[in-house]
């Protein structure tokens, strides 16, 4: 019996800039990461609606956004028992150590803008605990699908 495990990530990109969302999506598409789907949201409030409506494995999150900023979104997610285990990578121009420390305490990885595609890939790998193209993610909560061939 051969067991094939595919950890395809369902990704939500949250950024008020359509250009940045498309740049990130392009970087993901060019990476060796196992991506199942990529959705987009323009602010934290829209992202909350999205994550409550549909399962995601990974959120790529901007900070400075209208309506609900990224830090508010992250705090809300971490306080929600249904969502608290969501993997979050913050992609921001933010560089103040206090704020970054606060984000890390909330369990988020961090990538500084501007970033190279390989930097965002590395941050996702740190967040998921899996190597690009690896057959499995950190745990079953990563949207892993197991196919068993008898």
């Amino acid at each position, binding site marked *: 019996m051969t067991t094939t495990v595919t950890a395809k990530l369902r990704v939500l990109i949250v950024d*008020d800039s359509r*250009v940045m969302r498309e740049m990130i999506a392009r970087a993901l598409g060019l990476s060796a990461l196992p991506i199942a789907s990529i959705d987009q949201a323009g602010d934290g409030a829209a992202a909350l609606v999205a994550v409550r409506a549909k399962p995601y494995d990974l959120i790529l999150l901007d900070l*400075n956004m*209208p309506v609900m900023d990224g830090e508010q979104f992250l705090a809300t997610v971490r306080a929600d028992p249904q969502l608290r285990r969501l993997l979050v990578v913050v992609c921001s*121009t933010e*560089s*103040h150590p206090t704020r970054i420390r606060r984000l890390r305490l909330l369990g988020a990885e961090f990538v500084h803008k*501007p970033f190279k595609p390989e930097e965002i890939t590395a941050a996702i790998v740190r967040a998921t605990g899996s190597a690009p193209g690896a057959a499995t993610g950190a745990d079953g909560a990563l949207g892993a699908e197991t196919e068993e061939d008898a």
Partner: protein
Amino acid sequence: MTRPPLDILREVAERLGYLSVLHGCPPPSADGYEIVAAVDFHGGQHGGQSGTISIGCGPGIGAALAANMLATSKPDFETAREAVLELANVVAGNVIAVLHPDDELRLDPPHQARWPVTTRVVVALQTDEGVISLAVSPPQSAHLP
């Protein structure tokens, strides 16, 4: 602002990699900008740190930026506008980190604006897409829709 502005901007340009400060080159005139994007900043533990960072782009530069960012050949004006807003966002975040390293400042989302009338610093920056202007100014009240 204790460090010379050009020194600060040179450091930011080095960090970003794709900008360089043009010495002795006056920025384009304010009425020559096709797109101006501004980011307001405020806060800080000492209070009262506020202002606006603006990026001004002449005709065609926003489109060239968008084309490079998205690897597309003919971006429309809205995409060009959004590309300049994103450039302003990235530049502002990095300028603030150098300008006020001890203060945890908040940056508002970038918006389209008019070129500021009163400025603290204005410089011309060379990018792959052409020369753009950067201004640090007191808080601006005029937002364009």
